[in-house]
């Protein structure tokens, strides 16, 4: 079931479009913001709210990289694996995450803290290698800076 808050936010967002189905992606993003991921039930609920078929909503939900159809950790790490970051050695970042957290692309840590996903160019090519953690962008990274970011996430969760 979508919560009253979610429904209110979705109804407000879809006013910007000519018909309700056009707000499908907005609705999925709003539900995901509340639940961290989009379950089968959420797909059906969004479909019912917007007057769409579940398969129609599913086709959209599975197309976009940042709609999560599986549970993700409390923090999602998006490491850019496009060309400028490749030239500046993004592989060091993946290797370090594997070493420190045992985390490979597509995986979530056993404690549910971090999910690691490779991502298309983040438009931070002058600060390569770059990554995002949740909604924040970080550039010019090396192992030490990445460690500091991971520690900050852990501290925030403990607080």
């Amino acid at each position: 079931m979508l919560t009253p808050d979610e429904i209110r936010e979705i109804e407000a967002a879809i006013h910007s479009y000519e018909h309700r189905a056009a707000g499908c992606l907005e609705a999925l993003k709003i539900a995901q913001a509340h639940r961290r991921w989009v379950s089968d039930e959420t797909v059906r609920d969004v479909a019912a709210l917007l007057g769409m078929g579940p398969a129609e909503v599913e086709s959209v939900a599975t197309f976009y990289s940042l709609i999560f159809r599986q549970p993700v950790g409390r923090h999602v790490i998006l490491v850019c694996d496009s060309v400028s970051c490749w030239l500046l050695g993004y592989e060091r970042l993946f290797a370090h995450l594997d070493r420190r957290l045992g985390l490979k692309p597509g995986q979530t840590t056993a404690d549910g803290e971090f999910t690691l996903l490779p991502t298309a160019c983040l438009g931070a090519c002058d600060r390569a290698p770059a990554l995002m953690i949740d909604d924040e962008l970080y550039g010019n990274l090396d192992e030490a800076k990445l460690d500091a970011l991971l520690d900050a996430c852990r501290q925030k969760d403990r607080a």
Partner: protein
Amino acid sequence: MSERPLTENLKADGSPLSFAEYEAAGGYEAAAKALASLTPDEALKTVQDSGLRGRGGAGFPTGAKWSLAPRGERAVKPTYLVANADEMEPGTFKDRLLLEGNPHQIIEGMLLAGYAIGATAAYIFLRVEYTRAAARVRQALAEAYARGWLGANIRGSGYSLDIHLHTSAGRYMCGEETGLINSLQGRRATPRAKPPFPVVSGLFGKPTVVQNAETLANLPPILRRGADWYKSLSSSADAGTKIYGVSGRVKKPGLWELPMGATIREILEDRAGGMQDGRKLRGLLPGGASTDFLTPEHLDTPMDFNSIQRAGSRLGTGTMIVLDDGACPVGMVLNLTRFFARESCGWCTPCREGLPYLAQILQAIESGAGEPDDLAVLEEHTRLLGPGMTFCALAPGAVEPLQSALKYFREDFERHINEKRCPWSNG
């Protein structure tokens, strides 16, 4: 120092111009002038005369695109305007600078474009990862509404325009004009058949003009200072200035606004400081991931649409990606091809099947398992996935770096196959 109408007002600390700061720098003067003293046709003519070409990659003349929008009483309404701020071309980070640094200039540009084409509703299609830009655009939109520059009957002119901020959910295909329109309608970002072109039947089946964010930022200076002034900014066939960028192993990667037609050498050596110590230039993609390699022999080529095309590539987004001698050309092309294979929307078969196949062959070559025949297979596929063979421009763009790498770095491919290893790997 030459004039820099897109970036001269940007603040050194990277914070955005407030409404008051933008207004003090001459902001919204062009909008005031257009609404008070120009008809939409006159505004359109100024943009046509300026010679402005789209800054998103394809370089289509902006005024010519607008002139195709239906006009008059019998035209289908509303006409939509969309700012394409889904900057996802690898190696490209120019629109971020404008969106984060001066969102009001893009909003004023949208107001001017909207007025010229008769649009009453507009969207800013922003990639969702640009969270800082989203907050700043949202703030700027609120300021523009509060000051009466957006909404109904703008400043008593009788012209009305609403702009909505739409954030995407991550997919390269959204940068393709018709894919973007499908995405705005809440669908998968697959491309649409053309014709009809979006300017006739686009968003929700209505006339729709899609312009790149940098293109829109050019409009306030053009309408304020005129077409002749704009043309005088450049010494090349293409008018105005361009935001050029450099990434890769150079001393100072970054962005610079320069007269259209600055040479590759000026951008790479004078602005980006040349290669990092100990690294030599081997090649560069002049305008993002989907452009052909150029080499050191092209350093004195002006970065304008025609000159780069004559050199065998495309200006694209004008943000170059530099290959140094410490990086493997096959590895770079493999990275690029994997990106395009992953981002292919799957709508048409050659792209959906062909790009993963190319990535597989390149992976084999890179890991030392390449066969002598592989190069011919790769070459054949650059034609099979080329212009006219696929539904949209994704695959033809994807094979541009590959086809030129096979020409310029052929020896490197052959060494991988003959030595059965990557010469750059330590293993």
